[in-house]
């Protein structure tokens, strides 16, 4: 019997089909990342029991939740799942304590036991002082913790979080992220977090699963995914330049034009090449001599001010995103339309195999 969540299923909603293939072990936090329409909500809905699978099965701790081949289906009310919605969905006319106590009461606990469980979870999440308040009197972070307490008070084996921090403003998000990470790490069951925010995923998750167009395109630890993104979407999320190409000896012929001299890699055929924006040097003229094996010209088409640097969007063969300091922009007179030369050392390029649905 495999503990935790095992989802190997197809879920069809209208014209869209999700091909889910993931496992979440007890005590593990897995973040499902993907653009809008990738199938994240469909996945959560299927695991929660709100949408049946059209093929395959979903198991939790060895128990069948849904199996298309046998027709077995455990409805949502009977699944040991705690669900935290994006907008928390606290019952507006119940106090914080009553909201949290609702879960164990719904499972059949007596009023006294439910109240006791609620008080216990409120204490664990630092919410005791808010017990008598109504949801309308809570901040976003407080409401999120109450929703989490309510989900946990029901004693679930699986915790589902749908964009848990998206309803928060940027100012409170970081503090709440840290707290949420602490509470999730103390949860003994499997935890599946759906998000479109890469930072949220990187901070909260032990492992990432990336969904695009209804399929898992990459899976791995945050470090693995950040170092070797498998798709353009993931590369953009983690802030890397990503190129596809074909190995030609010590070079890679890029599909979009241009070539890279790369370090020894042991790959053959089609490959992916990742390059950090901060690893590219910008020069107004072609460098005469340097250790950088890759030099090419490009045209600046855009500048974006980030917190402590400026990101240049350059078109060339290949195109690239490059990070420079604001001082460099000023000194070099970098502006849209300007022609520059880019340099990148071969050792800064990460070359790896281009495998569909790759697992890192």
């Amino acid at each position, binding site marked *: 019997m*495999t503990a935790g969540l095992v989802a190997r299923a197809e879920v069809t909603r209208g014209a869209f089909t999700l091909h889910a293939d993931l496992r979440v072990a007890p005590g593990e936090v897995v973040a499902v990342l993907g653009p809008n329409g990738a199938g994240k909500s469909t996945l959560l809905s299927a695991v929660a*029991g*709100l949408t049946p699978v059209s093929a395959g099965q979903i198991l939790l701790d*060895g128990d069948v939740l849904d199996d298309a081949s046998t*027709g077995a289906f*455990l409805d*949502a009310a009977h699944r040991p799942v705690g669900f935290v*919605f994006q907008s928390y*969905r606290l019952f507006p006319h119940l106090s914080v304590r009553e909201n949290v106590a*609702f879960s164990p009461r719904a499972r059949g606990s007596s009023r006294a036991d439910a109240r006791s469980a609620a008080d216990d979870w409120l204490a664990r999440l630092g919410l005791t002082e808010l017990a008598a308040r109504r949801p309308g009197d809570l901040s976003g972070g407080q409401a999120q913790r109450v929703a989490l307490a309510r989900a946990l008070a029901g004693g679930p084996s699986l915790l589902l979080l749908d964009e848990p921090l998206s309803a928060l403003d940027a100012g409170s998000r970081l503090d709440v992220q840290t707290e949420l990470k602490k509470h999730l790490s103390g949860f003994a069951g499997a935890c599946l977090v759906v998000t479109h925010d890469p930072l949220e995923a990187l901070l909260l998750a032990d492992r990432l699963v990336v969904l695009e167009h209804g399929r898992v395109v990459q899976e791995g630890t945050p470090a693995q995914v950040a170092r070797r993104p498998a798709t353009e979407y993931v590369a953009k999320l983690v802030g890397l330049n990503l190129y596809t190409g074909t190995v030609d000896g010590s070079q890679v012929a890029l599909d979009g034009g241009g070539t890279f001299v790369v370090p020894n890699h042991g790959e053959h055929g089609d490959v992916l090449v990742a390059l950090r924006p901060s690893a590219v040097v910008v020069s107004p003229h072609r460098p005469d001599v340097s250790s950088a094996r890759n030099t090419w010209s490009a045209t600046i088409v855009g500048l974006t001010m980030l917190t402590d640097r400026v990101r240049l969007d350059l078109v060339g063969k290949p195109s690239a995103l490059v990070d420079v300091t604001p001082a460099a922009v000023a000194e070099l007179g970098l502006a849209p339309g300007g022609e520059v030369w880019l340099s990148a050392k071969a050792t800064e390029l990460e070359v790896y195999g281009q495998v569909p649905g790759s697992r890192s």
Partner: protein
Amino acid sequence: MKAMVVKEFRELARDRRTLAMLIVLPLLLLVIFGYAANFYVSSVKAAVVGPQAAQVTAQLPAFFEVTVDAPTDTRADAEKLLQDNTVDVAFVADQTPVLALVDGSNLFAAQSIVGTLNSFGSSVQTEVLYNPDLTTAWVMIPAIIGLILTFIGTIVTSIGLVREREAGTLEQLAVMPIKPSSVILGKIAPYFLLASLDMIIVTVLGMTLFDVPFNGSVAVFALGAALFLFVVLGIGVFISTISRTTGQAIQTAFLVMLPSILLSGMIFPLDAMAPGVRWIGYLLPLTYFVMISQGVMLRGASLVSLWPAFAVLAVMATVVFTAATLRFRRDLAPGERRRAPAAARVDA
């Protein structure tokens, strides 16, 4: 401004509920006030009892449609016919002048009957039963009880349910360990209790303030009210399943309530409506509750005599409530397409 006008027309064209109100409502009012709004009863059902029944029957004008001609029956039998709502007037032809017993619980018919009988002069002695002074309040209060139940059952219930959907807490309930049937019954029970309490208050106030009698069985009245409540609660639940916002729920409930008020016999007598419109009244649950409430409160009518109204309400309650809760259940258990055996363990 032209762009605003065009935008507004486009929005109206896509807002089916508002369109329905703009188109259906005027047509409905036209039909109602054209064909239904009529206080004049053209004929009434009459019984003639007593030894001179044949002579009296022969002399009655066409306004009195004699449906019971029983020479051997007595006044007591005639009163029973009135109590059971079999006839609107009963002539007791065992005395001179002839005694005409009028059912005062059917106000408009009674008024027409009394007016016609007055033209007979001293040859007929008139006695109005159940509502001797033909007081409008005595007839309206039992009907208003039904109206209040309709209001709570449709508008208030549907708003309460839709509000849960708007807040997203309905979806939260769907993923909680509560059976859909428990959610539905748990949501509806308070409205049932509140409506029942409102009904008791209005009934007692009506009796106290307007001296409306309560001549019949409380149990029969309560049974009728309970059946009627299930129907209107079912309608309220159904409205909530086809409404995304409280505004939509109110619009739909209003479209449901308006025909009920105007075509149930509460304001305009059913008998006076054109047949083409009267059938609508017979489809409305309020019509049957009004029959029950007026019958029990004013005439002391029995369950047996009111069985057709009870039967119709029972069928309506079963059909409407079942259909509505099945629809509502879809929101709470959308994935419940297949019935599952107990979760099987799998070595994966």
